[in-house]
């Protein structure tokens, strides 16, 4: 009798599991087919595994990325960076600027011709100069400072840059640096922490690959984030802006500094100079966004400092051998007009790219980075 009951229960549990699993698959397929998201297999086809960095853009990949807000063609050239053309042998009078960064640099939301890297290239070439400039967009979705250094190492020799522009996203790069710090010493860690971290990273990757899991994760995060005494400090992307930041932010900033110093050193030995750009988050410019987030953080018992992360990065990078550029004042100074950021993503619109390109060009001129290095 008792075994009958338990057999029935096991059968029911199995049916339940199968049905939930089948519907999971069904919703996964539906969301991937009609969801227009970065977790869609077509978009994931842009990437390929890389033993050192984890993943990279797939050389030769092409796709059309469509969402409710934009519709973009994306081409990855043979070097594995977003560009319609390949990178050939460097000409005598050619000067190359390597833009390294994350999704804000890659900018899948706008056509290649409208990315700030490409706009910068056109502006520099339009001015009277003995050089031809080539700006190489080496942004990769989801990268943090550590992956960016590793990509620089992989690309550096191939593209022979004269200037390396490390573009940090102040919103989450401190967090990303902590999460990827182990890559700097790959293979040397055998501690339980390292294993735990690897498992966490793999789990995160599993979640990122599933659209259903991604949405569920976001639901849980936003629900717990809104609930004061369950959330504690604000969600990770806002931690860098918290009046009292978590210890891992300080750790992430220290790693970022270490990465930037290393990049300067390696670039210098390859004959290139380095600059750092501090890209702001949308709410630093969007009042409505800021009001909403500030209220959410206040509800969670914290305090949001609007430019807190920019200030922290500036402070962390003070005294480094690379000039640091903050495009925030230039972005704030633009006259009223179309938005600088998309509404459904936190990325730049074509107008945002234009503003950043103009400001960046001014910065490169002001700091003398475009002048030929002395003695060369």
């Amino acid at each position: 009798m008792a075994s009958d009951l338990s057999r029935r229960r096991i059968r029911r549990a199995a049916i339940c599991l199968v049905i939930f699993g089948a519907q999971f698959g069904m919703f996964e397929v539906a969301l991937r087919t009609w969801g227009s998201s970065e977790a869609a297999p077509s978009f994931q086809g842009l990437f390929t595994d890389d033993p050192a960095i984890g993943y990279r853009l797939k050389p030769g990949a092409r796709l059309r990325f469509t969402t409710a807000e934009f519709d973009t063609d994306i081409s990855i050239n043979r070097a594995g960076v977003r560009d319609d053309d390949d990178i050939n042998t460097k000409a005598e009078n050619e000067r190359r600027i390597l833009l390294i960064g994350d999704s804000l640099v890659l900018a899948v939301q706008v056509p290649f011709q409208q990315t700030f890297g490409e706009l910068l290239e056109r502006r520099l070439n339009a001015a009277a100069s003995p050089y031809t400039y080539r700006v190489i967009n080496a942004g990769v979705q989801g990268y943090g400072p550590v992956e960016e250094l590793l990509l620089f190492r992989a690309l550096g020799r191939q593209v022979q840059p004269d200037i390396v522009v490390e573009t940090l996203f102040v919103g989450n790069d401190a967090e990303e640096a902590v999460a990827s710090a182990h890559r700097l010493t790959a293979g040397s860690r055998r501690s339980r922490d390292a294993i735990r971290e690897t498992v966490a990273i793999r789990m995160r990757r599993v979640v990122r690959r599933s659209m259903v899991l991604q949405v569920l994760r976001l639901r849980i995060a936003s629900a717990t984030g809104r609930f004061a005494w369950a959330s504690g400090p604000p969600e990770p992307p806002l931690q860098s802006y918290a009046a009292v930041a978590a210890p891992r932010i300080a750790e992430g900033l220290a790693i970022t500094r270490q990465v930037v110093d290393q990049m300067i050193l390696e670039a210098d030995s390859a004959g290139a100079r380095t600059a750092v750009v501090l890209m702001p988050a949308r709410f630093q410019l969007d009042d409505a966004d800021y009001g909403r987030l500030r209220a959410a953080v206040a509800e969670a018992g914290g305090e949001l400092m609007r430019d807190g992360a920019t200030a922290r990065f500036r402070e962390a990078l003070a005294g480094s051998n690379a000039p640091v550029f903050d495009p925030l004042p230039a972005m704030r100074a633009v006259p009223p007009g179309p938005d600088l950021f998309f509404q459904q993503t936190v990325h730049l619109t074509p107008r945002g790219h234009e503003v950043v390109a103009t400001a960046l060009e001014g910065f490169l001129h002001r700091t003398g980075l475009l002048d030929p290095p002395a003695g060369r």
Partner: protein
Amino acid sequence: MVFNSLHFIWFFIVVYAVYRMLPHRPQNWLLLVASYYFYGSWDWRFLGLLVASTIVDFSCALALDRSHSPRRRRMLLCLSLGFNLALLGFFKYFNFFADNLHVVFDSLGWQADFVTLRVLLPIGISFYTFVTMSYVIDVYRREIPATRDLLDFAVFVAYFPHLVAGPILRASLLLPQISTPRIVTREQVRDGLWLIAWGFFQKIFVADNLAAVANMVFDPGAHPTGINVLLGTYAFAFQIYGDFAGYSNVARGTSKLMGIELLENFRFPYFVRTAQDFWRHWHISLSTWLRDYLYIPLGGSRGSGGRTRRNLLITMVLGGLWHGAAWTFVLWGVYQGLLLIAYRAAGRVRALHLWIAGSGALARVTSWAVMFHFTCYGWLIFRARSAEHAGALSRALFTGFDPASVAISGALAPLLLYTAPLLLVHGIEAYYDDLLVVPRLSPGMRYCVYAATFYLTMLFGNYGGAAFIYFQF
């Protein structure tokens, strides 16, 4: 604190965990404290009104029960009703009447200074005053004895699942469950959990998503064509249903978990074929309240045809006004009254009667479709911002239909996406004529519905935390 917030979920988990550990009497104390906390989390200042209403009606009912003097009993009844109606009148209708008198005086050229107070509407006041009024009237009619236990009565009035948006419970149903020890059965836990999940689905997936479609049509500045007015009105019909039925289901579900049974408040109201049936299936606790304490005392259908029509009209106008102090609600009440009168008259015409009550497929489908559209037109009046706005939308609907202008991705697609799963489950429930059939289905079917409800709510639900529409009533 709204049901669709984590605040409520944590509140309920804590209350429920303690509740299950306590014996009967302390359980009632816990329910009272929890209910006052629930109500006070909106605005603690209005707790005083709730407590005052509880004490006045408890005392009046007790005195009514003890008294044998008809005169004294009538006086006590008037005292209680007067107190409750004064509360409602002041907090809900003062500014409405003051503003309208002002307009009338102005139009007559009379100068008069009217005081307009910034009166805040205490949440749930229409619900709990109706609950306490029905109790005192029942005691007056000697249909139930007055309770001698103030704690039980206070729990009956303030019981948090139904406090702010109903169902409007009768003492005969709830008081015995409060005053006697409760046993929570396995079936109650299973059904309760399903009702809570289904209620959240109705609110978060159906109502809150369809709100965007309805707002596109009803918001200021919108100039929709007739076809889009129609789609926006359908969307609002399912929004208000999902919102209110969702609330009622969460209320019933949480009550079941505590071993307390509440009334069914909705029973497939959009599947009906007559206006009379609609009110037997929509907001059942309000319509039965209006029937028992207003329509029947007015004479109901006992007198001449003219008198019955008058009673219907008065009842529905007051029912409309119960929803809020606005002319659109009055208009909606008039419309519902006229609809009831028209269907009553139609039932006497043989051909129409055969059509409305006929069992043939064509008669069933067409009479259902006609009634559904009459209902939807009522919602257009209800949701409009003013009588003029209702008129403008009606003009667009009847004279500027323009089918080619249909907003496919903005209105039609979301309407189909968000109503189809609801209608599918209601189809199953209606087939078995059982609102709680899902937990009783075969395991395969049951888990299919559970899984779909879970995934749809989690993946496509609207988590903006919108308040329930009926809170404002």
